[in-house]
């Protein structure tokens, strides 16, 4: 009995200094090291795969560039085909879409759900550290780890896709990949880290609400899917007012929001011209070297029609990244704050 404490009165107890925050670092690490190691192994394997595939892509791009630019030489077409074909590997990032949410959900949802499911919260929340501080001290470092891991993956993916984004490609007919492509935008830059962070925060909140690990993970996946879909379908296009142009030549790296036609200054119709209109004025094939859409637009312009396009130029990529990253960060902070508040409010 080496540390027999004196019987302290209430006055002494009130001035107790709380257990320092840093003490939670080792506790969090011990409890989550297996999960973190699994995530690190998964991301590592993914990174190695991406790096190997990226090496091939970069080599194919260099070979194509040598053959097609500035002078088109024999074999250019074949090299273009093999370069663009490689993009099928990740189908514009769609194959990697679930990575941030899986990482976020598998780390975030069990933090509280496992404690509540197994009853260990009755141990953790009655220690001197205090339950809301315990919750915050766990969630913040884990959130940072999740964001850092997926952020690093986003950097690697950006490197992988670099050749496809090069604007020089369009000069020799390689279709540009828009950095706004739905599968790519949220896996690169600030968005990749903050989407994983949002999944983590949703998971943490689902954990305290659902109180069981598997249902909490499922709830997280569902909520995340709804949020990601709504963002891609309704929200992202409106971060900045789209540019308006009547030029039929829109860079294929731009994100076209809407198109409509006018005739003599009056609205004519939306989208693609009707079959009868094409038959009436433009049933000739477009001249060589012109895409069908551009040819059609030029042809119809001779008959008094103008094509109007609203679009987001590729140059706005980073602005969009920061806008999306900012609101996702704010949302995540709000969700984590709500989780801590629920724990503090003693929702048991």
């Amino acid at each position: 009995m080496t540390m027999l404490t004196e019987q302290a009165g209430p006055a002494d107890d009130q001035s107790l200094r709380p257990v320092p925050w840093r003490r939670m670092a080792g506790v969090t690490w011990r409890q989550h090291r297996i999960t973190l190691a699994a995530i690190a192994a998964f991301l590592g394997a993914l990174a190695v795969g991406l790096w190997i595939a990226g090496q091939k892509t970069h080599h194919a791009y260099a070979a194509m560039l040598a053959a097609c630019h500035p002078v088109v030489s024999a074999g250019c077409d074949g090299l273009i085909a093999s370069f663009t074909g490689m993009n099928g590997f990740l189908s514009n990032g769609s194959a990697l879409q679930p990575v941030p949410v899986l990482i976020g959900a598998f780390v975030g949802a069990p933090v509280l759900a496992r404690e509540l499911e197994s009853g260990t919260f009755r141990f953790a929340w009655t220690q001197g550290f205090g339950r809301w501080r315990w919750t915050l001290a766990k969630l913040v470092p884990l959130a940072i780890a999740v964001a850092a891991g997926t952020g690093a993956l986003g950097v690697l993916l950006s490197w992988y896709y670099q050749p496809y984004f090069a604007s020089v490609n369009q000069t020799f007919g390689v279709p540009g990949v828009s950095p706004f492509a739905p599968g790519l935008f949220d896996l690169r830059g600030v968005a990749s880290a903050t989407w994983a962070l949002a999944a983590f925060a949703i998971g943490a909140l689902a954990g305290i609400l659902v109180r069981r690990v598997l249902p909490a993970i499922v709830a997280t996946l569902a909520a995340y899917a709804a949020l990601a879909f709504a963002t891609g379908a309704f929200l992202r296009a409106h971060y900045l007012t789209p540019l308006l142009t009547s030029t039929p030549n829109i860079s294929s790296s731009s994100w076209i929001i809407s198109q409509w036609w006018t005739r003599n200054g009056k609205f004519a119709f939306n989208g693609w011209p009707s079959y009868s209109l094409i038959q009436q004025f433009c049933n000739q094939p477009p001249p060589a070297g012109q895409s069908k859409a551009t040819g059609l637009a030029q042809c119809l312009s001779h008959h008094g029609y103008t094509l109007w396009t609203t679009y987001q130029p590729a140059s706005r990529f980073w602005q969009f990244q920061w806008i999306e990253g900012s609101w996702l960060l704010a949302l995540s902070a709000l969700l984590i704050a709500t989780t801590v508040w629920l724990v503090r409010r003693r929702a048991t």
Partner: protein
Amino acid sequence: MNIVEARGLGKRYGSTWALRDCTLAIPAGHVAALIGPNGAGKSTLLHLAVGLSAPSQGTVTMLGGLAAGSPAALDGIGYVAQDTPVYKNLSVADMIYVACHLNRRFDRAYAEARLEELGISRKRRAGKLSGGQQAQLALTLALARRPRLLVLDEPVAMLDPVARHDFMATVMTAMAADGVSVLLSSHVLPELERVASYLVLLSRGRVLLTGRVDDLLASHRLLTGPSADAGRHTGRPVAHAGLAETEAHLLVEATAGDPVPPGWATREASLEELALAYLREPGAVTLHGPGHEMGTRTPEVMK
């Protein structure tokens, strides 16, 4: 100093009151036993006491006026929850690390020595320990915090007789050595009869009886007499297995010196008989029995 003080304390889950109108004050220095059948509200009361849940009505303070669940209160309370939860995938050494780092005070040397004494290897996973060893681990971690109050929720319910004995021996040793007060809940009384010095009897979310065991025993007598006569005396019937049905046993509020009705014998009730009688007939508060005059001397009797 009162280790627990509750005033009008209640907890409602949905439309059901798990605990209601609970007013009690347990002084320090006791092994206080919270007794009642399953679902009586014992765990609810303990959860409120350690701040795991918030009261729906009333207040509860700990260790002489500290708000339940406040950092100051938690600092002085070692709590071992029902089924003694431990992190199953952590080693015993990691459990010690966790408990050590989550508290201002932690006697690591004591925890390690005690676990070694019990033959619990620090390398083993907590989840692989037997039920008794897990309970001992949880108790050791709680005691190593050097608490002023040890709160144990159904500590022995899941343990075999040997483990029960070892567990209670650890508790009693700590109590003797460090002067720690103990508040424990149980639905099995015989285990506690020897150790409990303060009793709180709960049933259906209500406090039936609370007081020092000595006072309670001194203020109750067991009347034994003919069954045919029993209706004339108001008291709580005590069932005795194996005894003839012609004989009635009634628990009444009375002291040893009180007059005995003709044809009846009287003796001191055991703690178990006292608890059983109250749990069986919670509403039969003595109003017209022989012990009526003595009612004022009963420490605290509640409807």
